[in-house]
């Protein structure tokens, strides 16, 4: 009889209730991740305080107590950053010593870069077939736009500078070093001794010296050997050296990818009756390159940042322009401000490359997880 009390039946299920406020949303996240124990709470508070101090000082320096107008540093009377130079000098930071009435050519070359790159970087680009032809012509179009010819005023490449120079050298290096790197990687694994030895010699000798040394050689040693009336264009010299340097690294990155491909893939391809090039193009390289994407992009980013070394041979990339600016008595001592701006430029490009590589890795991800 007494069982009755324990068998009280519920007619319906209780309605679902939302999880307690303290377990979900921002509060819940903070409780589990930031304040889960006394020690964690203290560490969180200390970290928050440090972030607050750094960020607030930075914001105060860069924005609140900064000074933005004026024609020299003496106009900057406040404690914070002095941005007065931006107005006068941003042109030089972007275009170097390029004549100001011709800068539209640089802008046009930059705008045309996007349709030239799009069909190679993304799927579903409308008109991709025609754009690929345009991409092949783009280097010539860009060279004519930047250097002149065909009715455009000729601008010496020593006038090329600022971020334009970083982009030109960086992009040329990136676009050229990938195919050369692939060829070198395949060459190093080739069964033909001459090709293998040449590839190894090139890779090891270029990789064994710092880029600065290569630039020095191109700038100082080459002119001694060449007849006096032959002068190689400085920008071309840099592009050649940067490309050679990046190719050697690229070759090793791709060789890593090639070695990760199981032998069965090679054998299967050969069993299908594919020749060497078909096997590489259809079976091996697509897999090897996919594996190598992080390493390839790593090399690209390194190459892009190495373009600042051109100051060694007297070319003024964005960093060189910044240093030349702070040597002007009117702008002495503003190196912090100029470094911040230069860093922003580089971060934008390098971070974009990094995000794109993640996008690509996700797109090509075929592993079964």
């Amino acid at each position, binding site marked *: 009889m007494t069982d009755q009390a324990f068998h009280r039946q519920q007619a319906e299920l209780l309605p679902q209730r939302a999880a307690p406020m303290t377990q979900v949303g921002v509060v819940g996240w903070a409780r589990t991740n930031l304040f889960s124990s006394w020690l964690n709470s203290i560490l969180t508070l200390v970290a928050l305080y440090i972030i607050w101090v750094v960020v607030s000082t930075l914001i105060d320096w860069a924005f609140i107590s900064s000074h933005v107008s004026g024609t020299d540093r003496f106009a900057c009377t406040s404690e914070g950053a002095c941005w007065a130079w931006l107005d006068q000098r941003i042109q030089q930071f972007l275009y170097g010593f390029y004549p100001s009435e011709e800068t539209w050519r640089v802008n046009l070359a930059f705008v045309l870069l996007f349709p030239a790159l799009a069909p190679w970087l993304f799927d579903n680009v409308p008109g991709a077939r025609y754009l690929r032809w345009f991409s092949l012509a783009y280097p010539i179009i860009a060279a004519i736009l930047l250097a002149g010819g065909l009715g455009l005023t000729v601008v010496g490449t020593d006038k090329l500078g600022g971020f334009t120079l970083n982009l030109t050298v960086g992009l040329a290096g990136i676009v050229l070093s990938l195919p050369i790197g692939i060829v070198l990687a395949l060459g190093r694994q080739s069964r033909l001794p001459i090709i293998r030895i040449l590839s190894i010699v090139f890779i090891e000798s270029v990789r064994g010296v710092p880029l600065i040394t290569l630039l020095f050689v191109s700038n*100082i040693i080459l*002119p*001694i050997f060449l007849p*006096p009336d032959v002068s190689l264009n400085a920008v071309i010299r840099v592009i050649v050296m940067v490309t050679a340097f990046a190719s050697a690294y690229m070759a090793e990155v791709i060789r890593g990818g090639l070695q990760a491909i199981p032998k069965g893939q090679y054998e299967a391809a050969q069993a299908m009756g594919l020749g060497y090039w078909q096997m590489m193009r259809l079976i091996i390289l697509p897999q090897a390159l996919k594996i190598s994407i992080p390493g390839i992009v790593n090399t690209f980013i390194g190459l892009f940042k190495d373009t600042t070394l051109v100051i060694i041979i*007297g070319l003024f990339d964005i960093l060189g322009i910044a240093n*030349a600016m702070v*040597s002007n*008595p009117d702008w*002495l001592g503003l190196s912090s401000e100029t470094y911040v701006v230069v860093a922003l430029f580089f971060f934008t490009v390098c971070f974009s490359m990094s995000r794109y590589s993640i996008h690509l890795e996700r797109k090509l991800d075929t592993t079964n997880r």
Partner: protein
Amino acid sequence: MKFTAITGAVAAVAAMWIAGGAAGGAHAATLDDVKAAGEVKCGINTGLPGFAFTDDKGNWTGFDVAYCKALAAAVFGDPGKVKYVNLTGKNRFPALASGEIDVLSRNTTWTFSRDVDLGFTFIGVSYYDGQGFIGRTALGAKSAKELDGASVCIQTGTTTELNLADYFRSNNIKYEPVPIETNEEARKAYEAERCDVYTTDASGLAATKSTFPDAENHMVFPEIVSKEPLGPLVRQGDDQWADIARWTLNALINAEELGLTQANVDKMAVKGNNPEVNRMLGSEGSLGEMLGLSKTWAVAVIKSEGNYSEIFERYLGKDTPLGLARGQNALYKDGGILYAPPMR
């Protein structure tokens, strides 16, 4: 055996190339090359306050640059015909040796070994500099000799580092070096009080001091601990070109002495009563022809950026942010040591 033969052959060919290249550079008449190129290739700094820097339009300007312009004016009558080649401390000498530039005007100290051993000819002194010290007035020191135990910010790998060691050792005082890579970093380090004293060339100290918001709390000590005669240089072995470079500099200095300025030189070029002026500006005698230049080369030189004093005051002098006094760089008759041989 076979291997050594091949190596030997390669070395021989390389040596011939080097010899051929060097010979080609040294024996060609630089003046003809310059005229054929239509411009003077002038090596300058990649950026040094007062001496070489860019203006807001992106043109190179400064004390060292003004000499390049004067030289171009001497050769072509047009100060614009210069190709500037920006050089670092490391590659300035190879650039001159290889013929990439015709003249180096890049705050270079005239020393025995550079002149004799490196195969260059210094053509004169355009600026007498010397190493000095800047420190906070709060230190209480009135002279560099009272700096016992101080920490000193110093650029590594330069003559300033060696001079510093020499000076403190010979005065028997201790110091703690704070080695730093570049001038700009050294300035920042000093400002952040990582060192008590910062040492570099006196002209650089003036530039540094002018960037401090509290300049009155810093003092440049009176001691100058080294001789740094800065001047342009050319390759050894082409005396005609060296003469042109030398007398362009001398013309600038003599112009100050004779009162010839950018503004009045055209008027003075008409034959007047002063025979020295007449000879220099070409209304009498044939100095220009002796150099292989036009009769009025000196007029063009002075018109490019003015005489020595005008150039100095425009880029380094009292009214500039650097605010350097003429000091040793005044004419000999004004108490300095600037003395150019007569033009006759």
